[in-house]
């Protein structure tokens, strides 16, 4: 069993809030991913068991949503929004400089497993562009120097 008793209890709590069990599937996947870092085949199978679904049904859901990761990434996920309002204010240049700074390309993870860098679509920070999402936190109104500082401070 890869999903802890604690997480299972939390999933039961989520299930109780919905008229049908399956309504709690996204909340459950969030919980499991938070605990394990990503949604491995074992974790997926266990989630499927809890929800009385076939693993493939859960896999389909995982692959539909950008925020669920079937494979392990870095300890931190860093995203640069490159949608139009952010691009108009230099987001693509910023992404390129961060790629160079970390020595990886968007979509890759640093060799020390510290950071996965990627671009993302609009994150609702368009007036404070360019911006980064680092795990669950937004950093806005950035310039290159500040963005690098933020990355360098990540453990």
């Amino acid at each position, binding site marked *: 069993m890869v999903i802890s008793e604690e997480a299972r209890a939390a999933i039961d709590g989520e299930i109780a*809030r*919905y*008229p*049908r069990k*399956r*309504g*709690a*599937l*996204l*909340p459950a*996947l*969030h919980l499991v991913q938070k605990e394990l870092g990503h949604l491995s085949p074992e974790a997926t199978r266990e989630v499927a068991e809890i*929800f009385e679904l076939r693993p493939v049904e859960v896999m*389909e*859901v995982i692959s*539909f*949503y*950008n*925020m*669920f990761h079937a494979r392990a990434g870095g300890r931190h996920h860093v995203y640069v929004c*490159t*949608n*139009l*309002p952010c*691009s*108009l*204010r*230099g987001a*693509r*240049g910023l992404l*390129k400089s961060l790629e160079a700074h970390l020595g990886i390309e968007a979509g890759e993870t640093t060799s020390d497993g510290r950071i996965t860098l990627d671009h*993302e*679509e*609009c*994150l*609702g*920070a*368009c*007036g*404070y*562009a360019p911006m980064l*999402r680092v795990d*669950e*936190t*937004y950093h806005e109104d950035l310039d290159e120097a500040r963005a690098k500082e933020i990355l360098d401070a990540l453990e």
Partner: protein
Amino acid sequence: MLTVPHTTNYLTEHFGDDAFTTLEGYRARGGYEAAKKAISEMSPADVIELVKDSGLQGRGGAGFSAGMKWSFMPTDGDQPSYLVCNADESEPGSYKDRILLERGGHQMLEGILIAAWATQADTTFIYVRGEYAFPADQLDRCVREAYDAGLLGENIFGKGFKHDVVVHRGAGAYICGEETGLLESLEGKKGQPRKKPPFPAQFGAFGMPTTVNNVETFSHVPHIVKNGADWFKGFGTEKSPGTMIFGVSGHVVRPGLYELPMGTPLDEIVFEHAQGVPEGRKVKGVIPGGMSMPILPAGMLDVPMANESLRERKTMLGTGGVMVMDERTCMVRAACVITYFFRDESCGQCTQCREGTGWLNKIVERIERGAGSEGDIELLLDVCGKMEAKTICAFADAAAWPVQGLLRHFREDFEEHVRQKKCPFPESFEL
């Protein structure tokens, strides 16, 4: 943390005050008095009449009458019925709902409570986009405070009315903003939109009658109940009453949120409030309502920001996300960014959409690289025509409109790329 809007009106008046985010602070400003009035003194039908009369239009993009939508909910039968608050905000250029969640959680909850009374709904699901972790945490806290104070749960205001609220987090998919894609996602499935009819009022969340409204739509409601329909109609235009929070982005001196009456001229928003383009450069074009809405050229910015007037200029108000592009901007590059987004986010159910969004992106990228040919512009228009009004949801239309808008007003940019076999705008934003 978001900065407080540059111009404020009734919705955002207290957004600079941290106390307003707490139940205590909200109540000190008269919060939940409107809900109390609605539930203790008005019948559900009265509330629906009032909201209809106010002319409140949905603020999630389509501008449909909120009161009218509520009236579609069945009032008989003993099956449960639901409200859904659409907080998936993922239309590029839109970020108004985020501040309404972060700084006005109780205001929105009060609107939800009033709507729940009006429609006699059992539960509201608030679908917050997954990336909005901080706003969702704020909202979770507001919901807990409201339960603790007896404003949610059983026997609200001692009137025997019961209502529950569930905050649900999405997981990153633009299409979950479309109301039936949202419902599928809420049920734990892929967010693929449903064929309509049946409409959500008959067959919605978990198969039950459901009304879906946007965060901002709900947030206006307490003010209407408190001050009356005539007061509300004192803002905005005859057909589009009230204020709206406009999110300005792109090449302006002062990007940010501005709460202004509906019908405020676009040029006033761009040049006065957002203070125009930096360093004295000129505007080339402005997308008025989020990325799905067709662009307007610099000469057409005197248009009032209301659907009735924007439609005359072949565009729409959408979510009020105003994107400003200066004179250096390459409109083909803009098209590359826009079409990439729609290609990436199509849910893939309809051939016209899945294939069409891919083609649009491929063709504009080819033109940008200098590899476009004479027929490519007609081909783009042809693909757009095949995508419009033919699919399960309006996403395909939303993908075609911005391309049509760019070709309507900036065809020259595309033709110049084909002629010169390269991008003629070296100073444009980087791709």
